[in-house]
């Protein structure tokens, strides 16, 4: 025996991130002091990251059921039925802290992790999306982070050959010390081939497959639940390194092995590695598991049981195999030149037993590690500073001297500017399914062998959520669904990534609770189930939290792939219509931030019934072939939406627009509000379109005509914008590239 375990004390438990209460609880449950390896297991499984201790109570509020839901939260990923014997698997996950420490590898391993969550379910990943937040773009650290993160995602996604088809990038100083890297993946699986992370069948062998285990990221899961303090950069925790090539082999080998029917259950070994997989799999199935660690393929010498159980080495999986079919599994993995080693078996006693060279080093009931993990309901409190913030009325500020300059400034603002600098580094076409590439409201991918397509988007606005967590979060759901509607898709399901500061602070937990409630309300109203998600708490540095940022990943379905739309104008003479209510606000707007440097004010009201009607009207018009384009008004308001419709396409086109007078011109042009969509309608379809809108009983009006080489906007008869599309395009295309160069 080359290892010896230290004696476990309260101090040691505290150093592992457990509280004194939690430590007492462990002793009480075990009826004795835990061994060192057991302490490691508890510290990982009872961490915020694995146990959702502070969020679980709130997450119960989310609607998770629906006719199409085949798998809700609780597995590696959620699943919805697509029909035609196919199902869509989806999940989003954050890799915020690792990406701050090592942007390239942090982001890359984020991609690797989310891919594994998808193919553990038996699905072939078909698309990735990345939702990113960075700090002040003027800071050199921000530039370093964005280039590192984007090249990390690019490297992993491109190398493994899964297209990255969408995402978002936004900037705010609140993310300076805490960039957000949320990655979403969707995969396709025949409905009868779904595999779950369950250890079924007492006596079945347990296989370790994939890369070898090293000392990477031990304590990574606990790190993800600890805020950054001064000196965190110096502490230099071990980072994990991604190996997309090995993951590609693992992906192919797993899918091939699964197709034989010999694989009964799979879980990936990511955060908290083997510890997590070997306890969660039996817990879900009501079984137990015994593991012998000496056989685990190791990259380094002298690893202790504790290290092997907690290692976060990437590109590894734990498989439960049908007894008698071990040879088949070994053969497949040998073909792909990967390790596949039998390391244990499923037992019936509900215990996780870990041995090293035959010697027992841990023996814990799996339910104690999982279901019986502590759950907290910590106090929440609406922060007092919020009142002053929302009391601010943006209309007390002077109107801009030139609305044209304001529009150009907004188009060049890094949060609004074209993200082509990012997505041209991602292969977004491999698999030849991508019908709508990045650059429109949602990406659209066909489902080969059917007439169908799916639409994908991620959305979230931290400023809105800061000012009104409930409405801001609901608006993120509404906007995601609206982006799908603009491409012609009906929403199917949500996967959400909730990025917040420390839940131990009442104000933050209040934001969280409100936001979850807002998401739940919007999902109920729009009838979209939440089938998977992720919580990233403690996203703060020295007490300064990020903007509360729930990110909504949403998938939608187009019954006819042919009937899809994109956001840019296409035909000279097409008429432009605005669907939706008039109500907008400069509160929390990009305008207020870019021109006045403030985040304050009230949000425009969100009427979910109206939202649903508008989306349905838009979708119906697209399905009927009446729209040449559809683009939702989001950050930057109507003027930015119109400009984008002019310049985002392959062949820029101008437009003439006339708007009724409002309270103020800047409000009319740049005010932001939900439920608004700009569509363009070919002349021959006008009548039909008008009839349809009447039928749908939604607010709408004609506002202009496509054509020419300038965007001209009149408000109340007065010309307020008249700019060449080339100039708009220049501002928009170079806004981000200029900053990161």
């Amino acid at each position, binding site marked *: 025996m080359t290892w010896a375990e230290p004696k476990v004390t309260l101090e040691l438990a505290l150093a592992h991130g457990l509280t004194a209460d939690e430590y007492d609880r462990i002793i009480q449950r075990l009826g004795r002091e835990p061994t060192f390896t057991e302490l490691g297991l508890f510290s990982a499984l009872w961490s915020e990251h694995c146990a959702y201790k502070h969020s679980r109570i709130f997450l119960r509020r989310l609607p998770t059921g629906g006719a199409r839901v085949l798998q809700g939260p609780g597995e590696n990923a959620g699943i919805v039925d697509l029909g035609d014997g196919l199902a869509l698997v989806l999940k989003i996950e954050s890799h915020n802290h690792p990406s701050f420490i090592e942007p390239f590898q942090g982001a890359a391993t984020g991609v690797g992790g989310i891919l594994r969550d998808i193919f553990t379910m038996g699905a072939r990943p078909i698309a990735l999306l990345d939702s990113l937040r960075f700090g002040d773009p003027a800071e050199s650290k921000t530039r370093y982070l964005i280039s590192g993160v984007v090249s990390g995602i690019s490297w992993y996604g491109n190398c493994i050959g899964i297209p990255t088809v969408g995402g978002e990038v936004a900037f705010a100083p609140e993310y300076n010390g805490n960039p957000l890297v949320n990655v979403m993946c969707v995969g396709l699986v025949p409905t009868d081939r779904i595999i779950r992370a369950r250890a079924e069948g007492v006596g079945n062998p347990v296989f370790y497959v994939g890369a070898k285990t090293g000392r990477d990221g031990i304590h990574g899961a606990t790190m993800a639940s600890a805020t950054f303090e001064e000196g965190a950069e110096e502490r230099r925790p071990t980072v994990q390194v991604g190996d997309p090539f090995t993951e590609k*082999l693992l992906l192919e080998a797993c899918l091939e092995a699964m197709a034989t029917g010999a694989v009964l259950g799979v879980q990936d070994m990511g955060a908290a590695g083997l510890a997590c997989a070997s306890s969660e799999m039996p817990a879900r199935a009501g079984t137990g598991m015994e593991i012998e660690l000496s056989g685990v393929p190791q990259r380094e010498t002298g690893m202790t049981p504790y290290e092997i159980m907690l290692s976060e080495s990437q590109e590894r999986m734990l498989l439960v195999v049908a007894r008698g079919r071990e040879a088949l599994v070994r053969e497949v993995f040998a073909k792909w030149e990967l390790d596949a080693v039998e390391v244990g078996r499923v037992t019936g006693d509900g215990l996780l037993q870990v041995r090293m060279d035959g010697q027992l080093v841990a023996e814990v009931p799996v339910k104690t590690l999982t279901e019986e993990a502590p759950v907290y309901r910590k106090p929440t409190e609406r922060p007092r500073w919020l009142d002053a913030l929302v009391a601010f009325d943006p209309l007390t500020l002077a109107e801009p001297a030139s609305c044209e300059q304001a529009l150009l400034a907004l188009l060049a603002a890094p949060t609004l500017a074209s993200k082509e600098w990012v997505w041209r580094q991602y292969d977004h076409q491999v698999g030849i399914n991508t019908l709508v590439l990045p650059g429109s409201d949602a990406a659209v991918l066909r489902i080969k062998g059917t007439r169908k397509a799916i639409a994908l988007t991620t959305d979230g606005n931290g400023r809105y959520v800061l000012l009104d967590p409930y409405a801001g979060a609901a608006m993120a759901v509404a906007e995601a669904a609206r982006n799908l509607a603009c491409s012609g898709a009906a929403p199917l399901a949500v996967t959400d990534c909730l990025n917040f500061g420390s839940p131990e602070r009442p104000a933050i937990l209040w934001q969280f609770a409100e936001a979850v409630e807002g998401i739940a309300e919007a999902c109920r109203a729009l009838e979209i189930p939440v089938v998977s998600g992720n919580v990233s708490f403690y996203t703060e540095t020295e007490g300064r939290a990020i903007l509360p940022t729930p990110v909504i990943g949403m998938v939608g379905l187009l019954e006819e792939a042919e009937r899809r739309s994109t956001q840019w104008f296409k035909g000279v003479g097409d008429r432009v219509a605005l669907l939706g209510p008039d109500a907008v606000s400069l509160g929390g707007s990009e305008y207020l931030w870019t021109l006045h440097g403030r985040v304050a004010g009230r949000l425009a009201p969100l009427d979910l019934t109206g939202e649903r009607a508008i989306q349905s009207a838009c979708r119906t018009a697209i399905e009927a072939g009446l729209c040449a384009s559809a683009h939702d008004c989001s950050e930057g308001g109507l003027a930015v939406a119109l400009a984008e419709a002019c310049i985002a396409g392959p062949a820029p086109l101008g437009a003439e627009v006339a708007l009724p007078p409002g309270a103020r011109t800047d409000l009319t042009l740049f005010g932001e509000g939900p439920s608004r969509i700009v569509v363009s309608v070919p002349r021959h379809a006008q009548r039909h379109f008008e009839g349809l809108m009447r039928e749908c009983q939604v607010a709408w009006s004609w506002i202009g005509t496509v054509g020419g080489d300038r965007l001209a906007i009149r408000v109340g008869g007065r010309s307020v914008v008249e700019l060449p599309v080339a100039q708009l395009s220049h501002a928009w295309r170079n806004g981000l590239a200029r900053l990161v160069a």
Partner: protein
Amino acid sequence: MKFGVVVFPGTWSDCDFHYVISELLRQPVEYVWHRSPDLSEFDCMILPGGFSYGDYLRAGAIAGRSPVVEALPDFAARGGLVLGSCNGFQILCEAGILPGALMKNECLQYRCQSTHLLVENAETPFTRGTRPGQVLKMPISHGEGKYYCDRQTLRTLKERNQIVFRYCTESGDVTGEANPNGSLENIAGIINDEGTVLGLMPHPERAAEGAMGVTDGLLIFHSLLGGLVEAGSFLKR
């Protein structure tokens, strides 16, 4: 015509080529594992895009020394045709089957975008469905696609008309702006002296049906298949 699509560990355009050949062109096609040196049943071998062996040393370096690649010169000498796209082009250069090398993109970043290609040589089995001077639209997706060779090699390539495609503008001008990766003289694709092995960085398989927005890639497949070309239906574009 029977196609073989080579699969290395890390290849990813294999399925896309397979789909285009079997579903769109309705031609016989099979995957060929990289260990297989027996190519006798095939007429045309495709080396698709991807990151063979992760491209960890240099793009295509490790795959360039595999059994299937070592069998290619013989295969071509016996009349077989070889098409290497993206990683396939890199592998052919690394194996010395095509001259030159593909280096990191000049911008030092990966590029996935649409490009235009000027047909320089329309007399190859891969391009005889095109006109010389014709501009084709085809996407690229690579991090190491900057073609490089020494002066002597470049001279030879020109003398023997081995440069098949150059990056150009939509209107056919070979300019620096149209060059997405810094390739020497905008070279996007070359052919061996015998005219049997073509390497190109762009992805014809991603430009082979209306749903993808471009169909110019089909010209390469149809050139290979010959029949339609002879019928003249593709010469009028």
